[in-house]
């Protein structure tokens, strides 16, 4: 599938060591356009809506911040740990700069965890990009469904 120059630049920015240590592509070698088309299908099959997931993630990120750096239990079911280190990160699509804030969302009953950042919520909501398979921050649709909507 063809990529626009902006998408090609975004894919370069997603390589390891350009913006973050491990990059955004995981172990994948295919174009981000192909990844996005595939993952839109994965999200749809899981019954997930991008905006709804983004809102849910933002809710947990916001609630987690109330722990002031320490883990906090939210709605009795989730354990959220927010880390807010120094610095900011640009979006690989070059449409914004985001704090490095990240949240680990753990469903206490199963112990399953999601790792999400300000930037990954933006990538999901605005670009329908959930990161490549193998990326530490990939929002795997089935896992998202189990952790966020149980």
């Amino acid at each position, binding site marked *: 599938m063809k990529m626009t120059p902006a998408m090609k630049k975004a894919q370069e920015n997603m390589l390891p060591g350009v913006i973050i240590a491990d990059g955004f592509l995981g172990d994948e070698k295919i174009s981000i356009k192909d990844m996005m088309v595939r993952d839109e299908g994965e999200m749809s099959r899981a019954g997930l809506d991008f905006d709804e997931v983004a809102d849910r993630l933002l809710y947990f990120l916001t609630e987690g911040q109330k722990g002031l750096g*320490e*883990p906090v239990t939210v709605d009795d079911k989730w354990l959220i740990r*927010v880390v807010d280190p120094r610095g900011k990160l640009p979006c690989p699509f070059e449409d914004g*700069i985001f704090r490095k804030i990240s949240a680990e969302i753990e469903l206490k009953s199963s112990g399953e965890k999601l790792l999400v950042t300000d930037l990954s919520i933006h990538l999901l909501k605005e670009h329908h990009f959930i990161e490549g398979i193998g990326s530490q921050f990939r929002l795997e649709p089935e896992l998202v469904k189990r952790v966020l909507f149980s």
Partner: protein
Amino acid sequence: MNFLIAPVVVAVIAGVLAAAISIVDKIVNNYGPVNISINGGEKIVTLNGGDSLLSSLASQEIFIPSACGGRGSCGACKCQVTSDVGVHLPTELPYLSKEEIEKNIRLTCQVKVKADIDIIIPEDLFNVKKFKSRVKSIRDVTHDIKEVIFDLQGEEINFQAGRYVQLVVPPYDKIKGTTQRAYSMSSKPGDKGVIEVLIRLVPGGIATTWVHTRLKEGMEVELIGPFGDFERSETDAAMVCIAGGSGMAPFKSILYDMFEKGDLDREVWYFFGARTTKDILYMKEMMELDAKWENFHFIPALSEPEEGSNWSGETGMITDVLDNYLKTKIDSGKAREGYLCGSPGMIGACNNVLTANDIPLDKIYYDNFA
């Protein structure tokens, strides 16, 4: 032999182009010797132009604090430029306030030194040094925080308790270049031959992942410092200190420094927030200090103590515990000052509690992670 003609022609053309690019680069980017005049000519360094201001100064052993090592992602390496170096770049603007832009504050990693340049930097930066240290010990102080002690191999560091150093992380795995990250020193100034830091694992973090998975005792590591302006004031006001997690670091340094120097008349309240008992560090050491030092009060508080942990201390969010103590236990008739170390969210929440209890913002000092 005809099949060789095409590859040879292509190779020759590529070689000529590469040589031409190299020559053009040397001509276009050769700015020759330039002078950097610092603080109105107090110090003038001469070097070849073409590098960033941050790198140029570092090459002369003048280190501007930078949490990202010059990648333009932290906004820490600011200094005022008083000569003309052109307009602010789009990469600088997100990190600068309107006032800073008006004063021509610049990110030194984004400003290229092409001609003579005049800058103003804090005097303290002349004392900053690069240390080639060796890792003396690494110890888990909680499940996700490591205490690392670096031996300065005969060199000494002179600093005020509360300052930080930058750890230089070498390339590893997919990380191509070096990375720098700032960590408050938890060692006390009296221990000049070592630097101790507390490093909490940040998921996906370049430096913290390296420290937690690659750093071993005996390895050589570069450190740059001291930096910062967080320190205790020279007053006799009661100190109300608040931290959590690795925010313990500057307070450990300050408290042991006060104890070592016999500065024991001053009242100090230290509130430390954690979720469970396994998230508290240096509990034994702080309780021992509390027992030995009459005016020091250590108040650990757990937000979610584990069942069966027999926790008998304070429970709840640290801000609620702080509010209660400010209203009922810490004498409001005496001068009080706030000291904070943590994330922007933690600083903001504690600022609200302190100001609501009549500690003005200009009496609140903080070591802001962001």
